């Protein structure tokens, strides 16, 4: 398992990751965050390539820095492509397996097996420099899983893959997870991560914004204020009904009363109340925009929260009836 | 809600004329190279010879005023310079009679041996990546998708090298000349030595133009900057060793052509009146050929991926 205790990594004056504290038992996790959020730094700390400036990192209970024994149990697929090589995929994966201290004949057999598994069985003898971007991604995956590690760590494995390639990569990773192996998957492609694992680590600006399943994060976001937008006729009636709801924190009419915007705490009670109000005959709804429960939406809300664009419940008091502006 | 047009929008402002497009590449390249802290440190260190030569100018002007101690110190300081041999007797007798020759000799030694060697180190620190990086990252596709010719591109890249070389050649040499004038007894020495300023500029140009062209050629030959760096250093080291060997055990003779450094030195010696034009003319032709060949090859290398 992986454990980070208040870990901070500084690159001179640049913060890579900032005070991350988390514990990951064996399982599958999606590591999600925008560019520069600290995903690769976190992975480099876990694989022992970087030393934390502050805090403590533990992998399988041991410090990964300079701990070669741990590396046999990790399979790492980095983001950058190994370019300009005049060697074949089979030679390269065999070579990396030999460096994992697997005997040569066994290395060749395992490399062959791994390349076939990622769909490169027919082209494994071609030089890597003749490969397409998608094929290179597959070789990278093959070298990571060829030595049968306990944990697979993948950094942006979907980059450069066409839709079919993405589908195949997703299937391979789903099988990996189904076999009971652990996975840490860093990606920008949120819906593909959703297909592989329900557990996420959301990083932004070097900080861990949230961790857990989408449901857990959504439940935690119950304390966070979201915006609901309604357009149509009969909006005055909706406003008069909703203004007294304890989960409605503010309410604002759009020009010409064509719609309303409400800052709300999205509780089940609020949703039931809103459904009842909208069912009234004088209300004709043309547009309804609510915060959804998708990972994309959760991430967007968390980012807004991080940037201070929305605020948590503690800063707000519910409106008294008749206070709508 | 306002919809913002985020697609392509034509530039409505006035466009600059195209003649200075190379300047953008030169300015950007210089800025990128300047980020290298080691380059900045070496540039500072490259001014150390200026201090030594400045001392020599000081001692010379002091010895003109009949200071025996200064004269002895000066002879000690310059006797190891190859071009000083024929000046030493007069330096002992009447230094004021050989001001022009002596200043020329000092400036030639400064540019030919000291800064000439430092030039190899400094250029090797940043020039190998100038074109290599563009080829590697395919940035040249971006460059040439704009209104930019390959010659403008090459000129911009060459100017990056020229700008840094100026900092260690033309600038300190000009500073040395100004210092020498300031240290002399009266300003009339300007009348006697004004031409040296132009000779300095000509001698530095003779260094910078072939060096920049050759560096760009190596940089364009490969996508890996270590190969370009290796090519650059090998050219100078192999040439220098070959010249030394042939000179020592090859029975003397004119072996300057085996070394680019010595070829440049030959032309510089003519600029400072140490060699005749007839002796330096072949070296000038060879340098022109190096420059032309390097630039044509570099251009062909840049254009090859565009054609394919």
């Amino acid at each position, binding site marked *: 398992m992986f454990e980070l205790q208040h870990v901070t990594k500084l690159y001179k004056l640049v913060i890579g990751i900032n005070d991350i504290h988390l514990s990951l038992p064996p399982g599958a996790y999606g590591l999600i965050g925008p560019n520069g959020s*600290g995903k690769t730094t976190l992975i480099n700390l876990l694989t022992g390539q970087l030393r934390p400036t502050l805090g403590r990192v533990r992998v399988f209970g041991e410090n990964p820095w*300079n701990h070669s024994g741990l590396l046999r149990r990790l399979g790492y697929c*980095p983001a950058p492509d*190994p370019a300009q090589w005049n060697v074949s995929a089979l030679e390269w994966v065999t070579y*990396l397996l030999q*460096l994992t201290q697997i005997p040569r004949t066994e290395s060749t057999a395992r490399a062959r097996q791994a390349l076939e598994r990622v769909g490169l069985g027919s082209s494994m003898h071609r030089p890597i420099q003749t490969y397409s971007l998608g094929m290179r991604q597959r070789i990278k995956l093959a070298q990571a899983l060829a030595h049968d590690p306990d944990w697979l760590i993948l950094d942006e494995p979907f980059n450069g893959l066409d839709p079919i390639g993405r589908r195949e990569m997703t299937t391979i990773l789903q099988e990996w997870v189904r076999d009971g192996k652990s996975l840490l998957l860093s990606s920008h492609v949120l819906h593909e991560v959703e297909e592989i694992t329900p557990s996420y680590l959301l990083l932004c600006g070097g900080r861990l914004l949230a961790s857990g399943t989408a449901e857990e994060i959504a439940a935690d976001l119950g304390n966070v204020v979201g915006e609901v937008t309604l357009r149509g006729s009969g909006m005055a009636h909706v406003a008069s009904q909703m203004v007294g709801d304890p989960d409605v924190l503010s309410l604002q009419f759009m020009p010409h009363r064509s719609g309303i915007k409400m800052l709300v705490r999205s509780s089940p009670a609020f949703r039931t109340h809103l459904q009842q109000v909208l069912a009234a005959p004088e209300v004709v709804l043309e547009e309804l925009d609510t915060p959804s429960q998708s990972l994309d939406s959760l991430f967007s809300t968390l980012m807004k929260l991080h940037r201070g664009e929305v605020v948590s419940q503690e800063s707000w008091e519910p409106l008294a009836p008749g206070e709508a502006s | 809600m306002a919809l913002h047009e985020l697609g392509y929008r034509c530039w409505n402002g006035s466009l600059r004329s195209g003649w200075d497009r190379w300047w953008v590449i030169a300015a950007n390249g210089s800025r990128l190279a300047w980020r290298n802290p*080691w380059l900045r440190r070496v540039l500072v260190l490259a001014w150390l010879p200026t201090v030594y030569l400045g001392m020599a100018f000081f001692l010379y002007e002091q010895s003109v005023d009949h200071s025996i101690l200064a004269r002895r110190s000066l002879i000690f300081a310059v006797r190891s310079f190859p071009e000083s041999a024929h000046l030493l007797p007069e330096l002992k007798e009447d230094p004021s009679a050989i001001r022009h020759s002596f200043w020329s000799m000092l400036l030639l030694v400064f540019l030919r041996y000291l800064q000439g060697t430092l030039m190899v180190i400094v250029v*090797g620190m940043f020039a190998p990546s100038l074109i290599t990086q563009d080829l590697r990252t395919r940035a040249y596709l971006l460059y040439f998708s704009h209104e930019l010719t390959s010659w403008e591109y090459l000129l911009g890249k060459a100017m990056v090298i020229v700008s840094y070389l100026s900092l260690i050649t033309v600038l300190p040499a000009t500073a040395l000349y100004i210092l020498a004038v300031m240290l002399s007894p009266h300003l009339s020495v300007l009348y006697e030595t004004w031409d040296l300023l132009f000779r300095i500029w000509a001698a530095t140009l003779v260094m910078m133009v072939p060096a920049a062209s050759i560096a760009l050629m190596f940089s364009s030959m490969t996508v890996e900057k*270590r190969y370009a760096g290796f090519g650059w250093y090998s050219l100078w080291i192999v040439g220098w060793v070959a010249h030394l*060997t042939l000179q020592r055990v090859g029975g003397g003779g004119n072996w300057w052509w085996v070394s680019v450094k010595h070829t440049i030195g030959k032309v510089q010696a003519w600029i400072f009146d140490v060699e005749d034009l007839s002796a330096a003319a072949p070296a000038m032709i060879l340098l022109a050929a190096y420059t032309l060949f390097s630039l044509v090859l570099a251009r062909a290398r840049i254009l090859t991926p565009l054609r394919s």
Partner: protein
Amino acid sequence: MNAESVWAVFRFEWRRSLSGFRIVAWLVLALFTPILILLVQSRPLDPVSEYVMGSVIFVLVVEVTCLLGLLLWGAPLIQAELESNSWIYLAVRPYGRVHLLLGKYANATTWVFLAAVTAISITSRFVWMVETERLWVVIVALSLLSSLAYGALYVLIAVVFPKKAMVFAVLYTLIFEGLVSLVPATINRLTIQYRLRSLLFHWMDWYDKIPEDARILLSKAPPWQDVGILLGITVSLLAAAVVAIQFREYLTGGPD
């Protein structure tokens, strides 16, 4: 650590070294000395003593060929991996960094040593000297020692200054192995050149033939001592490089 993994790196690097540019570079290194000596001998010569010619061959093969070769194969050891994005793939293998360093060191010294052997083998076919066989043996031995010692030095420079290794290797060679090794003082004994030069003059029995004031540039110690010091330098530098590569962080991309 595992010898089989070092051997795997060596084999892999050997295979990768068979590229057009590197083979051309190797040929230039191997043929540089014979061509130069041929040029020298094609001219009417003043009488040149045997030890002067031998010293020239020593400088060309043991110094220039070996140093330039190591500049190409040894100095960019880390830079090459960082540039081609392959560093991280190797570094996450058990003792991957150390295996990489030792395997690439072995590959670099082998290529360079072979270039030096080729150079002296061709040169000794036509050079006018009384003891060409002896010179061949001595130069081959010195090339081996030179490749090992300078290889270890350049590898250490590569580990400490990964992105500017070539520049620092050139600077170090010019300043220390070029200038300082010729300073008639204790400091020149710290250079590799001093030991190699001393071995040449002792093994070729030229020590007594050179002018007395030039002997200060040579070691008076018996040859086995110089060989021991050179091997000691090699092992120490390699050990330092192994320690440094294990404890250094190499950034492979931006701080994402």
